[in-house]
């Protein structure tokens, strides 16, 4: 009998607790704040849970040793939550949404772009409009199509730019004296050097960019491909891509019978000398990898003359974030010339600025010009000389699925 009464009491408590914590919906940032001073006021004492891809040691060190220290000056604690892929953060947000958790969410800020940003927009996971509050937004050229569109998805004030990336090939100059300068030349090089090249299997992010880079070339250039996905264009243009990729397959690592399942695996193959090339969206990481002995000292990065895909990484705030004020304050902090320069320093990270340098004053421009030159990576101006925008994110999945059906051996 006593057992039953206890059970009833617990059940009653549970109902009470549920009633007390019944969630209200988080107000949007624009409904909460009209000035940045209000944001800073409320941000004091808050902790920002920043969800960031954890596989980049440089990024991890930058967040922990530079950004977190700087944010402490504003009374904000930055708590970095490493994820294996941004989709993990997206799963959490979607889980919250499905559970009806519309406030007090555990994710305050997400390092995001491309397909994940689009997915979040589809499911209305982001808080929008807050980028107008950022004083440092004045350094951003919001009209630049590579800023205003995230893989073709309009940004619509739902995220603030953070850094720029440029897809580059990486090779060992001790083994490859004259690296191929165009996609057709690269395909020829692969056929002439069996077993010395491979790429990660899409949907790995890097493998996916590699197939798009080849897609641009086999389609006769970026401009011949409709920016948004178009089924007819896919039917017309993709067969040339598949036949090119099938054509090199027998000359790839393991004769193309299998592919690295992640870019980390490809980097390991390169570091161990099993292949002569790797590829990366963050060429600035190479200096650190050479310095710690992961890559040979003769490693060099370059981009192809017929174009290299570039994109922008952003910081986005989930609609149910618990600490929006601090998240906005951090996003603003990250757009300052000082932080953009710190981020561009080869140690700890070395990633390219997302702000328009011509909007900063001459002394800042000089500091960016004085960034140390790398022995392994050309300066950003050279890397991005032939920069090509990404296709819209809705191309990614058809191309990834098509690759699995047409190229992956069965």
């Amino acid at each position: 009998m006593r057992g039953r009464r206890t059970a009833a009491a617990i059940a009653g408590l549970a109902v009470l607790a549920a009633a007390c914590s019944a969630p209200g919906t988080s107000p949007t940032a624009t409904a909460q704040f009209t000035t940045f001073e209000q944001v800073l006021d409320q941000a004091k004492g808050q902790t920002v849970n920043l969800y960031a891809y954890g596989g980049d040691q440089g990024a991890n060190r930058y967040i922990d040793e530079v950004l977190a220290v700087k944010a402490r000056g504003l009374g904000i604690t930055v708590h970095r939550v490493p994820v294996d892929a941004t989709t993990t953060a997206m799963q959490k947000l979607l889980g919250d949404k499905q559970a009806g958790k519309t406030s007090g969410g555990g994710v305050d800020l997400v390092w995001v772009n491309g397909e994940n940003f689009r997915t979040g927009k589809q499911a209305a996971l982001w808080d929008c409009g807050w980028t107008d509050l950022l004083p440092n937004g004045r350094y951003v050229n919001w009209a630049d199509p590579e800023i205003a569109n995230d893989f073709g998805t309009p940004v619509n004030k739902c995220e603030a730019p953070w850094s720029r990336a440029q897809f580059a090939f990486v090779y060992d100059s001790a083994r490859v004296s004259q690296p191929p300068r165009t996609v057709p030349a690269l395909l020829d090089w692969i056929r002439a050097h069996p077993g010395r090249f491979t790429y990660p299997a899409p949907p790995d992010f890097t493998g996916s960019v590699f197939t798009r880079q080849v897609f641009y070339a086999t389609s006769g250039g970026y401009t011949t491909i409709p920016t948004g996905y178009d089924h007819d264009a896919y039917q017309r243009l993709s067969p040339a891509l598949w036949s090119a990729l099938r054509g090199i397959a027998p000359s790839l690592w393991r004769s193309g019978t299998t592919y690295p399942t992640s870019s980390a695996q490809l980097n390991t193959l390169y570091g161990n000398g099993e292949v002569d090339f790797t590829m990366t969206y963050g060429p600035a990481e190479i200096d650190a990898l050479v310095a710690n002995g992961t890559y040979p000292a003769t490693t060099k990065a370059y981009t192809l003359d017929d174009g290299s895909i570039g994109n922008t990484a952003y910081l986005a705030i989930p609609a149910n974030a618990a600490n929006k004020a601090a998240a906005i304050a951090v996003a603003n902090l990250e757009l300052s010339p000082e932080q953009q320069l710190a981020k561009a320093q080869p140690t700890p990270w070395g990633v390219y600025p997302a702000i328009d340098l011509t909007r900063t004053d001459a002394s800042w421009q000089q500091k960016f010009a004085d960034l140390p030159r790398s022995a392994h990576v050309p300066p950003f101006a050279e890397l991005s000389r032939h920069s090509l925008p990404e296709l819209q994110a809705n191309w990614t999945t058809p191309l990834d699925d098509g690759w699995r059906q047409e190229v992956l051996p069965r």
Partner: protein
Amino acid sequence: MAPGSAAAVTVPAPIAGHTSNVRGTGRARVAVALLTPALVVVLGLFGGGLALAVAQSLGAAPVTGDGTLSLSSYTTVLRDPEFVSSVLTSLWIAAASTLLALALGTAAALTLRSSAAVSRGLALLQAALPVPHLVGAIAFSLALADSGLLSRLANVAGLAGTPADFPALVQDPHALGIILTYAWKETPFVAVVALSALGPRIREYETMARTLAAGPGARLRHVTLPLLAPALLAAGMLVFAFTFGAYEVPALLGRSYPEALPVLAYRGFSAVELDARPAGLAVAVLISVVGALATVGYGVAARILATRTSW
């Protein structure tokens, strides 16, 4: 010496499970009370997760779906040749790992039992038990890769020139790297289970068989293994269900095609396109179905064994 004489000594064996029925129901109540906290956690967390997975695999996705339930993700998955090859891959990995672990684990237990260093051997076996599968998989990838430790040793010994000359042991067509990792990880588990089953009772029967002139081979075949069988069957079922459904080892050491079922499920679940999630969850639910079938098969096999050993 004659096999016939050994068979004659396998006298009726008391079956442990049959003795407890005579005790009162008070004990059963205590057992239920003691099990309740664990059952609440298992049924609440695991059962709840499973129920959610079933619901979402049927299309119940509050964010993206229109809420109508259908089996369409299951028909899509079952018709996909990629799914079929993943099923075969996972069955191969699980069956080969289980048999290898059973053979090695039993052999280790039998060797250790008659060795003086039994406690030291047991400690060695148990040292491998708490190592996470993920760590084991990474260690094996460092050792077995084309440019791994073994390959480098082979190179020093003049056996292999370039990394490409070394036989493919990770991401290889026969999933050898995955099977070896599982065998390494599960063998101690089987050995510990077998060692604890090799109690004084079995020793008595073995001695009896020996006095009746059964040789070591005959004793093993007709006395020891039949008496160990229930414990080995249980351990084998656990290893099979685990290796069939575990993600991390095939994710690290597997090929891009065909993928083990859990890798296929996770790729669907984590796809950027939200409408690929139900299919990924359908694969996950089907993995659970196979796990449940393995449990049912275990129950049937255990009953057959019980009737066979309790003449």
